[in-house]
């Protein structure tokens, strides 16, 4: 199936000479939730801004449902909804008028029933006649989402959608995003909260220094790059790991009271049963054991760190 968003060899160098994006190639599939992760200044917002028409692209090509974002911008943009990172709002406008304005701007005739549905879904109906300046930060964030949904987009960009919102609203937004996905809307979100990507995304893309360094199914990524660890708390501290256990690659903590075993979940045999048997044979008893796996955050941090080590820090000045 044709991807809903297709980015080919996209570059962006700002007038200042700063190279924000370099040779980006990325396909977003229909109906998925795609999380774009990256540290500050990695190029996430620039990439989204180019696709949405806010920033001029450099070299390369971007298609939205087959429509070129430059030569066929009307068709491409009419499919896109954008929720920006900052709380941009016209303070003197009412919720109803600003959301209705957005629908008109995207070329659609007034549809009070749809606007009402959007406002009700976002718990904004009671505030429809309230001026935006009188709303709380969380409510203003909802207004931005309502504006983006007012013209029934097929692709929704959420740039740091839950930045600065409380835990309750964040959870509500996650539910809303899943509901949108279930209705067929493709969601592309950038976030600093790895937990958010881990919770919601179907696929993860990692961008660093203007380059996409990885795109992977979330579950596959966590399987492939995630580590699982078994920690055994010993009855008696050990001074040294017996030579016969060297093949397990065990680590001993500083005071010798804990053995750490890293294993690969993708292998047919994790080696845990062998390890426990051999420990028993050597008379090494343990009082407790814990198994854990690395989070997406750890995977992300390791990826970005290794990417930065590989690259020359001065490379990006164009």
């Amino acid at each position, binding site marked *: 199936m044709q991807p809903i968003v297709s980015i080919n060899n996209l570059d962006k160098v700002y007038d200042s000479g700063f190279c924000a994006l370099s040779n980006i190639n990325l396909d977003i599939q229909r109906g998925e939730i795609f999380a774009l992760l990256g540290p500050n200044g990695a190029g996430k917002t620039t990439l989204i801004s180019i696709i949405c028409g806010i920033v001029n692209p450099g070299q390369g090509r971007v298609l939205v449902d087959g429509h070129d974002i430059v030569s066929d911008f009307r068709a491409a943009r009419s499919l896109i909804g954008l929720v920006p990172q900052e709380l941009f709002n016209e303070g003197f406008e009412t919720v109803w008028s600003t959301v209705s304005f957005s629908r008109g*701007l995207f070329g659609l005739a007034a549809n009070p029933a749809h606007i009402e549905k959007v406002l009700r879904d976002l718990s904004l109906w009671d505030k429809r006649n309230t001026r935006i300046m009188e709303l709380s930060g969380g409510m203003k964030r909802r207004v931005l989402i309502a504006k983006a949904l007012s013209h029934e987009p097929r692709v929704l960009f959420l740039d740091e959608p839950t930045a600065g919102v409380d835990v309750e609203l964040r959870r509500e937004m996650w539910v809303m995003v899943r509901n949108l996905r279930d209705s067929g809307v493709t969601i592309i979100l950038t976030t600093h909260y790895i937990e958010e990507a881990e919770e919601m995304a179907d696929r993860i893309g990692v961008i660093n220094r203007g380059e996409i360094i990885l795109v992977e199914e979330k579950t596959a990524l966590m399987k492939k790059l995630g580590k699982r660890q078994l920690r055994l708390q010993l009855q008696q501290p050990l001074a040294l790991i017996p030579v016969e256990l060297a093949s397990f690659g065990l680590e001993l903590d500083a005071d010798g009271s804990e053995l750490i075993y890293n294993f690969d979940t993708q292998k047919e045999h994790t080696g845990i049963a062998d390890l426990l048997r051999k420990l028993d044979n050597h008379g090494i008893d343990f009082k407790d054991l814990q198994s854990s796996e690395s989070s997406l955050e750890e995977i992300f941090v390791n990826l970005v760190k290794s990417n930065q080590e590989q690259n020359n820090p001065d490379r990006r000045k164009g």
Partner: protein
Amino acid sequence: MNIHAIRAIYRFEMARTWRTLLQSIASPVLSTSLYFVVFGSAIGSRMVAVDGISYGAFIVPGLIMLLLLTESISNASFGIFMPRYSGTLYEVLSAPVSVVEVLLGYVGAATTKSVILGLLVLATARLFVSFEIAHPLSMLMFLVLTAVSFSLFGFIIGIWADSFEKLQIIPMMVVMPLTFLGGTFYSISMLPPLWQTITLFNPVVYLISGFRWSFYGVADVSVAVSFAMTLVFLLVCLATVWWIFKTGYKLKN
């Protein structure tokens, strides 16, 4: 053509006018009326006629033009500067709208406001001084053409300016002096020959002269030249706006 978008922008801009009625309409009408009271009724009654027209009536076209230029620039520059300043312009930039549609929305609204103000001041002036309009259609044409041209100019200033100070510099430091020195309060034939020549480099002279001709049939420069100069200014502004959107100057980079 994205008619819904044009309507949305236009209504949004006009709603701002109605929301701030005192500032948008009443204030400029009042301040211009004061000119008529002072220069028209009070001082004007003691001054000699200019080109056979009473002084009070002579300054009416110039004062309307002064209001038209300043309000067109102010309305249009503010209309586009505020979304840039507040960040809400992202929505217009990401919408399926062309340059023409954006202009019809923003500049159309600014022009409408200016024309309404111009006509209100014209009606107000009639309360203080007596005058006739010799060529009403030409008067209306100059009024609209000038409002469109200077709204476009204001739109350009609103994109160029990156602070409130810069937003005010061109209207206050350039347009206002050019209007005062462009024959608002006098005929350029009253100046010494050297200054008459220098004054011809002031584009506002052509606007005021053409506008005054439509009232009284007398002008400092040929009405055809006035019309041509207004059109040239309009085309220069249109070309500049087209270039801004093509390059993304101050908008997309």
